[in-house]
C-alpha cells in the first residue's frame, strides 16, 4: 500500500487531542501512515505515545509533551514546541522546526530529536540513550544527570552544562557559560569526530558545519558513588 493511501488530515479545531491520539494508537502496525495535524494551537500531548511506522506533520506550535514516549514514528513540528517535547522517546525521529521549551528530550531512551531553533533550560535532562541535535543554543542545566546518548549543540550552552553527568556525550560548537559538577571538557579524538559526523549526518547537516569547531564534554566520573572527599562537589 502506498503512503498516500494511508494519508489523513486531522483538524484539532473540530476534534480533540484525545481523539487524535486514540486514532494514532489504533493505526495498523503492519503498514506505514502519513497524517497531518491542523490547528494544534499549543495543545498538550499531541501525538504522544505512538508506536507505529507513521509520519505525523503538525502544522503549527504545540504545547507540552508533544511526541512523548515516541516509538518508531516520525513527528515533524512546524513551529515551536512546549515543555518536554519527545520526553522519554524510545525510537523514531522528532523534528522541531522552531524553538523548544524546557526539558526537550528529557529521559529519552532512543531515537533522534532535532531542533532547528534553540532549546531552553534542561535540554536532555536525564538523557538515557537518545541523540539530540540542536541547531541553535540550549539553556541552563542541560544534560543534567544524562546517562547515555549524545547532545550536539551548534550554538551556545547555558549555565551548569552536564551537571552530575554519567556517560552521555556532549558536543558544543559555541560558548559554554559554565560546566556543572563533575562535567569536564575532554579531548576530541578521531572516534569522537566520527561519531559527531554520524550524528550531524543523521540530522541532515553533515558538511554544513566544521567538526573541528566543536568541543567535547563528559563526566569526570568522580561522583558516581558517594565519597566523602568529594562532599563539597555534590
Amino acid at each position, binding site marked *: 500500500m502506498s503512503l498516500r493511501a494511508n494519508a489523513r488530515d486531522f483538524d484539532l479545531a473540530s476534534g480533540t487531542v484525545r481523539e487524535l491520539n486514540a486514532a494514532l494508537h489504533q493505526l495498523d502496525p503492519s503498514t506505514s501512515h502519513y497524517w497531518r495535524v491542523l490547528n494544534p*494551537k*499549543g*495543545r*498538550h500531548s499531541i501525538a504522544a505515545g505512538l508506536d507505529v511506522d507513521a509520519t505525523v506533520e503538525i502544522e*503549527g*506550535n504545540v*504545547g*507540552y509533551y508533544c511526541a512523548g514516549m515516541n516509538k518508531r514514528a516520525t513527528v515533524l513540528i512546524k513551529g*515551536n514546541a*512546549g*515543555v518536554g517535547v519527545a520526553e522519554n522517546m524510545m525510537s523514531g525521529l522528532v523534528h522541531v522546526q*522552531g*524553538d523548544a*521549551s*524546557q526539558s526537550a528530550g528529557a529521559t529519552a531512551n532512543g531515537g533522534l530529536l532535532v531542533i532547528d531553533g534553540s532549546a*531552553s*533550560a534542561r535540554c536532555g535532562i536525564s538523557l538515557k540513550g537518545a541523540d539530540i541535535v540542536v541547531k541553535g543554543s540550549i*539553556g*541552563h*542545566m542541560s544534560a543534567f544527570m544524562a546517562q547515555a546518548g549524545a547532545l550536539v549543540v551548534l550554538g551556545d550552552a547555558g549555565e551548569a552544562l552536564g551537571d552530575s553527568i554519567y556517560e552521555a556525550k556532549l558536543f558544543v560548537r559555541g560558548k559554554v557559560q559554565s560546566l556543572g559538577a563533575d562535567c569536564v571538557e575532554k579531548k576530541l579524538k578521531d572516534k569522537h569526530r566520527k561519531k559527531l559526523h554520524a550524528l550531524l549526518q543523521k540530522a541532515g547537516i553533515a558538511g554544513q558545519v566544521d567538526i573541528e569547531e566543536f568541543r567535547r564534554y563528559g563526566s569526570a566520573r568522580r561522583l558516581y558513588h558517594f565519597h566523602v572527599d568529594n562532599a563539597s562537589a555534590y
Partner: protein
Amino acid sequence: MCGIVGLFLKNQRLRPELGGLLGTMLTTLSERGPDSAGFAVYGEARPDRIKLTLRAGADTDFDAIAAEIGSQLGEDVSICRRDTHAVLSVPAARAAEVRAELGRIAPDITIVGMGRRMELYKEVGLPDEVAKRFALAGMVGTHAIGHTRMATESAVTTDGAHPYSTGADQCLVHNGSLSNHNALRRELQRDGIGFATENDTEVAAGYLTWRLRQGMHLGAALENALEDLDGFYTFVVGTESGFGVLRDPIACKPAVMAEAGDYVAFGTEYRALADLPGIEHARVFEPEPAKVYFWDLRQ
C-alpha cells in the same frame, strides 16, 4: 500552577478589543488556575483625575457612597460599578481626602488599586465567570494583565487573588511560590508596609512598593528582587505605560511571549496566545531567566 496573561497593544485600532482579547487568553488558562482570577486594565486617563478601584459586598450602595463623598468634598465624583467592584473617579489633588472619607463612611470597603489609568478587578471563581461578572469583554485600553490562580501558599479568598497593587498605576501578578515570604514580610512590616493576608505574592508586591518608596525605578526594583526574593516566580508587572516580565534565575515556571506588529503578549503557556490576531506571523519566544523585560508605550 497558576496562569498569567498580559497584552500590550502597539496598534491603537486594537484598543476597543483589549478586554475581549484578554478575556479569551484568561479563560484559556482556567486549567492552570480555577480557584480565582483577576486582571488590571489600563484605560483612558482623564486630566487631573484619579481612579480608585473599590471592592465591597454585593449589597453595597456604591452610588450613595460616591454621592456622599462628592458632597463632603464639594467635588464632581463619578462612580462606575461592576459587580462587587466599582471605579471611583475623583480629582487627583484630593485623592488623600477621598481615601480618608471612604475610611470614615464605608470602613468595610477595600481600595484594591488606584491610578490615573489602572482599574483592577479580582474575585473567587472560574476565570470565565470572573471575566463575565466584571464584563471584561467590553473593556477598552492600551494594555492589561491577568491571572488565574491555583492556590498553594494561602487560602482561596478574594484577598488572595491577583493582581496585587504595588503603587499608583502599578500592579503585580505571580506564578510560583516564594519560600522566604514570612521573614521578608516581618522586615517590610517593620518598615511600615502593611499586609492584609498571609499570601506570598502580597509580600512580593509589598517588596516592590517598598523599593519604589526608596526612589528606585521599577526596573531597578525588579533587579533587586532577584537578590532578595527566594523561591519560584514568574512576575508580570503592570505600569501606567506598559508591562514588565521577570522570571527567577532557574526559570522554574513556564513563560512564553509573542511580539507582533500590533502587540506584545505574554502567556504562561502558548495556548493562551493562540487565538490572538496574526499570531502565526508573530515572533514567539521564551523570556530568559533572571532578565528584566519591559514594553513601554513611551518608547
